[in-house]
């Protein structure tokens, strides 16, 4: 039906319009405080714009997570390798320890004053203690044993010789085979072997080249035996057939 015709009908349908007008007149009146309630509700409800303001933070968190995933090294690169082979910094004593620091205060004879040497020594000891504490409990036990048997070296007057000795003891002392052996300084570092590291991750279960060669050899032997067995079975079957 066209709009024009409908508009004409709208004018003609007087009874319908009158009925609607009466209905509207009988409708319940709007409560006077309803608008005030709406305004109160508007004031109480949290604004949606606050929720909208969250999205940049969410996006930033997602980007940070993505970067963290990218930057994190894969599980194959375990730190056990670094522990198995002593690092060059551990083998060679640090030049800052062996050579007197230019900033250290010197006495009249051109030697380092005892107070300064004590400061440097304590710094080294602290550093080493921290390093050992991060390693395995077995190494800690060994170090404690060494502590008991070691005479204090801090009372020595010759700073350079003492420091060098401490460093050599720390770095090159082999792992004692039993308890009660060994004799390093208080902050002695023990080179860890594979046996000292508890294998807790599956990627550490790796065969050595010798073990791999042995496995291959055993596999080849087994294969040869299997071939021989197959040949014997074939021969036996042929004999059976010939007899029949």
């Amino acid at each position, binding site marked *: *039906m066209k709009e024009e015709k409908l508009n004409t009908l709208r004018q003609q349908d*007087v*009874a*319908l319009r009158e009925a*609607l007008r009466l*209905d509207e007149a009988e409708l319940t009146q709007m409560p006077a405080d309803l*608008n005030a309630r709406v*305004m109160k509700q*508007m*004031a109480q409800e949290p604004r949606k714009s606050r929720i909208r303001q969250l999205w940049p933070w969410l996006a930033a968190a997602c980007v940070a997570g993505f970067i963290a995933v990218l930057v994190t090294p894969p599980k194959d690169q375990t730190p056990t390798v670094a522990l198995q082979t002593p690092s060059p910094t551990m083998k060679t004593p640090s030049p800052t320890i062996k050579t007197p620091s230019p900033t250290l205060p010197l006495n009249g004879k051109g030697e380092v004053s005892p107070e300064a040497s004590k400061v440097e020594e304590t710094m080294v000891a602290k550093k080493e203690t921290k390093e050992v504490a991060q390693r395995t409990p077995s190494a800690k036990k060994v170090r404690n044993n060494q502590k008991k048997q070691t005479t204090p070296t801090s009372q020595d007057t010759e700073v350079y010789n003492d420091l060098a000795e401490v460093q050599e003891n720390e770095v090159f002392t082999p792992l004692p085979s039993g308890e009660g052996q060994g004799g390093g300084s208080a902050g002695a570092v023990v080179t860890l072997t594979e046996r000292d590291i508890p294998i807790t991750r599956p990627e550490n279960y790796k065969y050595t080249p010798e073990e791999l060669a042995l496995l291959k050899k055993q596999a080849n032997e087994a294969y040869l035996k299997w071939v021989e067995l197959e040949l014997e079975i074939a021969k036996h079957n042929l004999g059976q057939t010939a007899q029949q």
Partner: protein
Amino acid sequence: MTETDIYLIQGLRKQSPKAQQQALDRYGGFVFAQVARLIPGVENAEEVYQDVFVKVFRNIGMYDEGKSSLKTWISRIAYNESITFLRHKSQPVIYYEDRNGEAEKLSDTEVDETFGQPSAETVQLIRAAMKHLPPDERAIITMFYYEEMSLKEIAYVTESIPTTVASKLSRTRKKLYKIIKMLQS
């Protein structure tokens, strides 16, 4: 659109309480009547009314001046909120459904004559028959005859197209006449 309307819309977009109060004063009565017409019970109507205006104030950013006036846009929200309330929260009510299409067979002349009679009896019959119409059809009839909205505006409010609204109006008119006849018999 008048200058006052422009200022009002700008104020609403800035979430100004003064503009919100102004919008409530200007359109509150109209919206409440529209809601109360569709929804039975004053408490329910009040609840929907509050929801309508909260939605209007929150989503004013989505209002497009080029598509409709602010009043029509608010009316659309009120209509949708009312229909949603009726579908989900209201008690189910049985309305007259012309499943056999008998109303369509009625002659236009007969229908025009009945609705054109301004007698008290006919008016009462129409009012009684209106209560048997489904809410959406009643809303369309009211929007067209009482609020004198154009087909385009009704289509915007009901999320439809003008031709559909026109055919729905014609069908509802005949259906109303059919109910009157049933009430008379």
